[in-house]
């Protein structure tokens, strides 16, 4: 990965009637990175991908790839290749003919074409499959053919439109790791469109979360998970407890907030926002159930378990904080020797101010 942007999107907008599919999006995608566009269906992520590939034209704004403005450049002249959601394997051509499809126009000669096709098939672990017909392939194999067919063109950017949505869970997980490894091996910039937050977290160097045609947050997977900027992002990625709070003061050491049911806390390093009401988020796994009377933590509250959800490797507890109506979700791994508590049991929960997230600091609270 370098710090050189390979794709520069500047104020790109697209309207269907009065509805904006994209409302002025700007972003840079760096050379060699695995970049994901993540969001619910209808958020504009596919539209943006199709604009990069040239299948859709922006109403406003510009897109340049490797320093060249792409306005007016049709898809067949762009240095990008795409893996389609349906894979779009040409049904009347063999696997090798599919992979060689784009090479034909380059007039490389028979030997060189054959060598490149075999190389590409080896890259996706499909050696010896060249003679197969598409209808003989499984879903995972079709995806590999689609990948080989795009990669053989040696694109500057590989675009992937929901490539995992046609696969079952097990195969999907396997292909996610494999795709990540493949990207590192070839070093080509990958741009992935997905609605699956786990997939985005697992595979990407950076993620842009999109809602309603705009980018809500652009961050690394860890930054996205640990420091979501808004309630919307926080609830789209993973689980989050939301608590009402008042920002009492903001000074260079951080923000002092009064949180419902938890009391006052200093959020170190928080300097944006202004005094007034706000929302505080804390992930369920950042709340620790304290087993035994002597266990302790930076901060502790007591509560009663009102419900449990057992997932095998972990259990989610709904805990009502004593003397309040506030119920929070606590996630505990079911490690060796750790008891699984039942509804009605009393418990103590430990937490720390550093795991609190101030959400929507610039918005006045509702």
């Amino acid at each position, binding site marked *: 990965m370098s710090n050189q942007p390979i794709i520069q999107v500047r104020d790109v907008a697209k309207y269907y009637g009065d509805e904006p599919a994209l409302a002025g999006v700007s972003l840079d995608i760096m050379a060699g990175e695995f970049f994901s566009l993540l969001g619910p269906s209808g958020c504009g992520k596919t539209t943006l991908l199709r604009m990069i590939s040239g299948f859709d034209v922006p109403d406003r704004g510009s897109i340049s790839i490797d320093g060249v403005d792409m306005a007016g450049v049709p898809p067949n002249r762009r240095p990008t290749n795409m893996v389609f959601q349906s894979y779009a394997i040409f049904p009347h051509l063999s696997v090798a003919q599919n992979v060689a499809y*784009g090479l034909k126009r380059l007039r490389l000669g028979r030997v060189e074409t054959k060598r490149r096709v075999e190389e590409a098939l080896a890259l996706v672990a499909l050696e010896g499959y060249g003679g197969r017909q598409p209808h003989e392939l499984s879903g995972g194999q079709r995806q590999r053919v689609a990948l080989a067919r795009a990669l053989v063109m040696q694109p500057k950017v590989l675009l992937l439109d929901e490539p995992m949505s046609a696969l079952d869970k097990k195969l999907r997980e396997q292909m996610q790791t494999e795709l990540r490894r493949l990207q590192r091996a070839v070093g080509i910039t990958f741009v992935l469109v997905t609605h699956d937050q786990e997939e985005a977290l697992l595979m990407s160097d950076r993620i842009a979360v999109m809602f309603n045609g705009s980018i809500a947050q652009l961050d690394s997977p860890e930054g996205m998970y640990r420091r979501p900027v808004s309630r919307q992002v926080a609830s789209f990625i993973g689980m989050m407890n939301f608590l009402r709070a008042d920002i009492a003061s903001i000074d260079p050491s951080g923000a002092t907030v009064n949180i419902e049911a938890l009391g006052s806390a200093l959020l170190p390093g928080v300097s944006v926002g202004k005094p007034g009401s706000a929302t505080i988020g804390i992930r369920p796994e950042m709340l620790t159930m304290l087993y035994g009377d002597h266990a302790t933590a930076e901060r502790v509250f007591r509560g009663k378990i009102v419900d449990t959800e057992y997932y095998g490797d972990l259990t989610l507890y709904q805990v009502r904080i004593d003397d309040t109506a506030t119920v929070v979700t606590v996630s505990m791994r079911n490690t060796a020797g750790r008891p699984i508590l039942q509804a009605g049991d009393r418990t103590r929960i430990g937490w720390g101010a550093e795991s609190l997230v101030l959400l929507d600091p610039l918005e006045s609270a509702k």
Partner: protein
Amino acid sequence: MDQSQRAPGGLIFYALVYLLFLYAPILLLPLFAFNDSAVIALPLSGFTLRWFDVLWDTTALHAALYNSLIIAATTSVLSTCLGILAARAAARYPIPGKRGIVGFIMVPLVLPEVIVGISLLVVLIQLGMSLSLWTVIMGHVLVCTPFSVAILGAAFNNMDASLEEASMDLGESALGTFRRIILPLAAPGILASMLVAFTISFDEFIIAFFLTGTDATLPVYIWSQLRFPARLPGMMALGFLMVLMSFALLLTAEYLRRRSSRLISGDEAEGASLFFDAASGMR
């Protein structure tokens, strides 16, 4: 009610009787075609091939056959070309007033053929054009095009749009994409459309009856012979041969259509047929 459940016995019986009703005339055809009697009536009186010899010796019939073949072949090519254009346009592009336009193209499917025939005749007379094989072709292309549009529409609609996008994405031009992707995938549908149009045109009577000049087509010739009882056994033999030809053409077309849908969408496309495509196209 799943697919494997058996139909009530009464319904199966009804279906078989109905099939017998549908096939009754066609099943009688070979009986009289090979019957050694100049009268078309029961009881049968013996086996003969002489009615086929009669056909072989009738030169007027050969001229009519030749005319019909020329008309049917030309019609099948022209209506399939018009069908490709319309079906492709309707399947892929936004067209203002698409429903109305496609609906209008499909109108000859339900319009009585007498109306099509006389209205074209009126124009030809007013323009002072003489009737010929070409005037018959004009009418036949009009009535065959809706069938071509329906059959090809099914082929184009089932084609995943991202196949074309993938081709463009891999560097191919629009023309190259048409040649390397769309045409090969649509080829069975195109052949099926040609076969069906050929069959319809070859068999069509009314329009040919109005628009033919001195050159009779085969159905027009048959019509002229039905008045003469002595010619009827020969017509039975001719009808029998025509039925055999139609069966062969249509079964080939159906085979091609199935191959096409298997190729394009990967499934066997069971429960559909040529006519199913046509019927869906009407809606």
